[in-house]
């Protein structure tokens, strides 16, 4: 009743009562959101430029030798990045060797094997593995995993391989403290598992179920469906997911700093202490001055370009995934 009377009265009586937004706000809002979006580009460019400028004195001083030299001598101001580069690449490689099979197994379990009621809690647990801060992985590594690893793996392995031709070099440990390149890679593996596993799971879920059903229809087993239907379908994106994990492993800092041993020299054994680019920066930055500071930022510059290339390739390969 009242509604009816209101309706008749609207045209004449209350045309001005409605808020009329000004065109100025519209323009302002559009420009503000555009500016915010551009800021994302500015940030990346800013990181790139600041790394180059900050590291420039070191690059100028040592030239290409900065990358190839293994000397890191604070007293005589000689800096070379080679041991840190090797450490970064080898810890990341070990992390992939352990982490990739784990992640793929988890993705297969979550999409093909787990009972429906169990999927959600398992998926949540795997994702919580990504929420645990890096520094907690470092503490777990240093106080729990390292002593176990030293006593049960490192010392026995060193005793066995001592004197052997190749294994004696790669696996013999001169100081079996549990700290080292391998330990860092092992802990990194569990840190990258949730990222690779969840992207791979999404890729497998996006594959049309018709494909799966037709394979089952001609009598394929679950494993054969995974191996011959799902993996070839999702292959490229799975490689992308793995590279995304690689990007994480290359730049991970706190966990690695705790367990890598922070040795400045290069060792042929993966059970010996070493350092990565990120761990060296975290370790030395606050005491560094002058050229050492520039050398550390130059290390950051190298890390930036390596991870940038890896992440660009990874993102191009997984471009169709909706999550992160």
């Amino acid at each position: 009743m009242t509604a009816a009377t209101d309706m008749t009265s609207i045209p004449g009586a209350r045309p001005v009562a409605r808020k009329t937004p000004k065109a100025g706000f519209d323009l302002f809002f559009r420009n503000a959101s555009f500016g915010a979006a551009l800021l994302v580009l500015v940030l990346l460019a800013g990181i790139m430029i600041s790394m180059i400028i900050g590291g420039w004195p070191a690059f100028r001083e040592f030239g290409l030798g900065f990358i190839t030299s293994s000397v890191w001598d604070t007293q005589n101001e000689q800096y070379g990045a080679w041991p840190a580069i090797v450490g970064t690449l080898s810890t990341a490689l070990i992390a992939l060797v352990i982490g990739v099979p784990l992640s793929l197994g988890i993705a297969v379990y979550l999409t093909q094997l787990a009972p429906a009621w169990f999927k959600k809690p398992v998926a949540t647990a795997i994702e919580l593995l990504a929420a645990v801060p890096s520094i907690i992985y470092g503490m777990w590594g240093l106080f729990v995993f390292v002593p176990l690893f030293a006593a049960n793996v490192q010392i026995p392995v060193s005793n066995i391989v001592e004197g052997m031709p190749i294994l004696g070099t790669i696996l013999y440990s001169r100081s079996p403290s549990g700290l080292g390149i391998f330990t860092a890679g092992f802990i990194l593996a569990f840190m990258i598992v949730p990222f690779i596993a969840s992207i791979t799971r999404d890729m497998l879920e996006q594959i049309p179920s018709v494909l799966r059903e037709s394979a089952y229809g001609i009598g394929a087993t679950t494993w054969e469906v995974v191996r011959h239907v799902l993996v070839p379908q999702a292959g490229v994106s799975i490689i992308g997911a793995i590279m995304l994990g690689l990007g994480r492993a290359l730049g991970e800092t706190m966990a690695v700093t705790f367990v890598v041993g922070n040795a400045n020299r290069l060792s042929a054994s993966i059970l010996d202490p070493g350092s990565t680019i990120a761990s060296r920066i975290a370790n030395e930055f606050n005491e560094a001055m002058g050229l050492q500071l520039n050398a550390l930022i130059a290390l950051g510059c190298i890390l930036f370009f390596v991870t940038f290339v890896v992440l660009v390739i990874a993102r191009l390969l997984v471009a169709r995934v909706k999550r992160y």
Partner: protein
Amino acid sequence: MTMTTTPRELPHTPWGRVRQSRRTADRLMKIIATAFTFCAIFVLFWILGMLLVKGIGGLSLATFTAVTPGPGTEGGGLANAIVGSFVLTFLGIAIATPIGVLAGTWLAEYGKGSQLANLIRFINDILLSAPSILIGLFVYVILVEPFRGYSGWAGGVALGIIAIPVIVRTTEDMLNLVPGPLREAGAALGAPPSVVITSVTWRAAKAGMVTGILLALARIAGETAPLLFTALNNNFWFSPSLAGGVSNLPVTIYQFASAPYENWQQLAWAGSLIITISILLLSIIARRIVAGGK
């Protein structure tokens, strides 16, 4: 899936033996995949169990009321570090939220489909996975070195830069889920785009956008590396001006964990427990909101 293998025996076919080996391979892979999954879950519970066992002994009233002790000083707590962490984290979120929401809005509403939007989305994804230590170095170069000193502001900016891509990504994703007719209805009433976005689209996507902010909060609350070069740490209450180092939990844990003082180590464990529980709770709450919104 139940129709995969018929249990009927066909004794005369030459396939019998092949089928057995295929079945073995299938079973083996199922066992391995299941074992790997439980291995990862085991590690999660191992870490949580370790934090509970070692951290709970360090929790007391003093943990939340006393400031962090200096080297060799008895007792002490984490009060200043906890408050400092809150301040830095919320400063980071306060910086990142408007920028992230607006940028995500531009990507979903204005720039949609344009080359520039695709580029920005791509770069945002790169920033999302960029090593946080590099963000710390970047803020050191632009804010700490020129102003000659570590500060809470630099720490907040570093955390904000890490949070921005998370918020951009979730905002865009959530806005893309809002059905187009809703926008058209708004436009049909005569509302300009800005009003349609703020009072129709944003309102419809509110739960998802809040989730993005919570996830960003969870992401930056435990970040340590970028704070090492920006906010640093100290054993005192921060000054309200946020000039100078600001005490915070992650860097305190880092410094206390491997120190030779027993009370420092105990506090490092207590701090780890506090920070991990808060982050896991935040992540679970964020997940709940998403699940409830659908």
